[in-house]
């Protein structure tokens, strides 16, 4: 046992968890913690807005599968990171958010920079701690990391009053602890996996729907083995994009509001679905009623509360999806099940896919979204990590940027947070410094967190912003063109900065690409430079994302480009 302050105990406990860096911004209420950075091996990465600190931690967490850590002071610092916390919660990303709080005796008195961040954050965290004495800090950290990264991962908030940071106590850093009401794992029911195999074998048009849980549990090899053994076409949710190589003959890509035509068509025709790690969000399946009417559903998920929440499953397997899929692979081997011949269903799937690859109408101009994103794909090494912002560019990425190495594509799919992609890319690059990291961005989204360029330059974290610049809030503009009779209110970005100069003013690199040749050069230059780069790509503000499944309709009611 050693006597130390709560702040020191926090750093020591985090070091024990393997934390190498945190993202944050200081203030009065977390100064004692900041003071400790001078005395420990944890690197502090300074942001310009706490929301970005949370997104960076999120990006780090999704890539490394270890909680990313962000720091903010009390009051406004704490409220600023809320969006980032809610974003991580919506996408089950592991994260630790550490906020300062006014001293215990001041809580509840509307003190300067006091906010009830525990009360505000509770609905959007997996758990929140507010240690009231210094001695509670080590166990809170230990439990916090455990909760954040196990089972269905999520954000954990540690709100630490200032006097708890400065007070000294005899510290015990526990190796063992008990959290009575927390059961992160269940063992998958083997009998149900067996039944699932039989159901798939006895269906005429079976399909796999892989969701974000497949990526979270890195169940890539298992997924591929099963798809190939049973000859099952694979569609994904948007969050599950890239859980299966998108250049694989059985891959159809994401379904949903902005899914691939072939994926939505095949999903709408299937009679049995093996749904893996998905919550069947409305964005993915359209109307819930229409979706489950014609389908037998096998649902695998780590979170028992997902079973039956949005869709009724005939067979449910609760447990880590990788563990469940491993059991399935083993059973398939034992029963020597390996389909080799092409079923009429697979033939039909392949024909449909080929048809849409040929016949989907694309933008006629040189700098159409499909061409731009395919160029990026062509030039990026397959292990590169891609994040996106939110808007049309995100959905074009869904449609035209094929993920080849599973688990290298991340987006704010649950909350749909503009401004997420760039800071998340910085966090991702910290987690994987040796691969190129690219944020596919729109100008509206990039404007929200572009000041993270300062962090990228100052902290030497060279990411690439691939900016599809239509000078408008494109996705909203598309909805206004489609559903509001072209009444274009509040979407013209009018006074956009010159993004090349903007990048340069931060000490980053800015390149404008107005033709395919320029784009080719720009990407190559960005890939070979060691400074953050913004590639500004002016595009047609009127280009729509199509196909499109309008909200409240079913996957078979797709709007196609005419």
């Amino acid at each position, binding site marked *: 046992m050693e006597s130390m302050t709560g702040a020191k105990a926090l750093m020591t406990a985090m070091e024990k968890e393997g934390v190498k860096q945190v993202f944050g911004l200081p203030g009065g209420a977390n100064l004692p913690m900041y003071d400790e950075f001078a005395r420990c091996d944890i690197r502090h990465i300074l942001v310009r807005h706490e929301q970005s600190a949370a997104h960076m931690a999120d990006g780090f967490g999704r890539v490394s599968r270890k909680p990313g850590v962000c720091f903010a002071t009390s009051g406004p610092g704490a409220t600023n990171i809320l969006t980032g916390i809610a974003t991580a919660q919506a996408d089950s990303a592991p994260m630790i958010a550490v906020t300062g709080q006014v001293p215990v005796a001041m809580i509840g008195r509307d003190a300067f920079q006091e906010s009830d961040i525990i009360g505000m954050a*509770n609905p959007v965290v997996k758990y929140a701690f507010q240690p009231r004495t210094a001695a509670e800090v080590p166990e809170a950290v230990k439990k916090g990391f455990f909760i954040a990264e196990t089972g269905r991962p999520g954000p954990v908030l540690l709100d630490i009053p200032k006097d708890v940071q400065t007070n000294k106590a005899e510290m015990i850093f526990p190796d063992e602890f008990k959290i*009575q009401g927390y059961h992160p794992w269940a063992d998958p029911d083997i009998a149900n996996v067996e039944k699932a195999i039989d159901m798939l074998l006895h269906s005429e048009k079976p399909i796999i729907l892989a969701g974000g849980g497949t990526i979270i549990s890195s169940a890539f090899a298992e997924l591929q083995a099963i798809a190939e053994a049973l000859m099952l076409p694979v569609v994904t949710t948007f969050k599950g994009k890239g859980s299966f190589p998108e250049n694989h003959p059985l891959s159809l890509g994401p379904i949903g509001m902005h899914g691939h035509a072939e994926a939505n068509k095949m999903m709408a025709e299937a009679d049995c679905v093996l749904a893996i790690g998905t919550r069947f969000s409305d964005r993915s399946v359209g109307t819930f009623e229409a979706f489950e009417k014609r389908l037998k559903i096998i649902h695998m998920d780590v979170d*028992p*509360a997902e*079973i039956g929440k949005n869709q009724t499953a005939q067979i449910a397997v609760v447990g880590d999806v990788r563990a469940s899929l491993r059991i399935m692979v083993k059973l398939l081997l034992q029963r020597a099940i390996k389909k080799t011949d092409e079923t009429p269903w697979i033939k039909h799937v392949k024909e449909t896919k080929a048809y849409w690859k040929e016949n989907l109408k694309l933008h006629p101009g040189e700098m159409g979204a499909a061409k731009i994103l395919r160029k990026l794909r062509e030039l990026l090494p397959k292990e590169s990590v891609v994040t996106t912002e939110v808007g049309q560019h995100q959905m074009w990425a869904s449609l035209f940027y094929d993920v080849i190495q599973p688990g290298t594509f991340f987006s704010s799919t649950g909350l749909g947070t503009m401004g997420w992609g760039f800071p998340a890319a910085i966090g991702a690059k910290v987690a994987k410094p040796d691969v190129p990291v690219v944020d596919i961005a729109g100008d509206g989204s990039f404007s929200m967190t572009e000041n993270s360029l300062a962090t990228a330059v100052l902290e030497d974290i060279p990411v690439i912003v691939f900016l599809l610049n239509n000078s408008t809030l494109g996705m909203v503009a598309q909805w206004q063109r489609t559903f509001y009779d072209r009444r274009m209110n509040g979407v013209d970005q009018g006074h956009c900065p010159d993004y090349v100069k903007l990048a340069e003013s931060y000490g980053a690199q800015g390149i404008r690409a107005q033709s395919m040749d320029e784009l080719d050069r720009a990407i190559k230059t960005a890939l070979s430079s060691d400074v953050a780069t913004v590639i500004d790509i002016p595009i047609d503000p009127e280009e729509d994302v199509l196909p499109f499944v309008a909200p409240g309709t079913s996957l078979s009611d797709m709007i196609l480009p005419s």
Partner: protein
Amino acid sequence: MWAILSILVENKPGILFKVTHLFRSRNFNIDSISVGVTENPEYSKMTITTYGDEKQVEQIVKQLDKMIDTVKVEHLDEHKTVYRELSLFKIKLSNANDSMEINKLANAYGGKVHDVKKDSIMVELTATPDQIQAFEELAKPFGIIDVARTGVAALQRSGA
């Protein structure tokens, strides 16, 4: 369907808020709620009654179960459970007969009479929500001045 949920939680501040917030954020309704510490001071027990179809109730139970502060969540079978609610009724006395009539009514429901005044009387009734409802209907004609109800407390019968 009316459902009785018994929820064992850690006895820590803020948990009642989290549980009730869960109902709000998941679009479920609380019909009644009662909370009290258990024989072990580390835990509190909440009894929540709610309405929903089978799927909804199953989902509430799962969401409650998922909460880290909940130790045990049970959907109690109404027929294998003893459940009671305490209620207090302040009833108007308009004429000489009323007091006797209300006494009789209270007796019929196993209630107790308190605070008899010239123009009002208080009845304490511990019963199932249905019985309290029935009593209220019968007491209405006298004129109900005020009512307070505690929400249901419930325990499963042994061997059930």
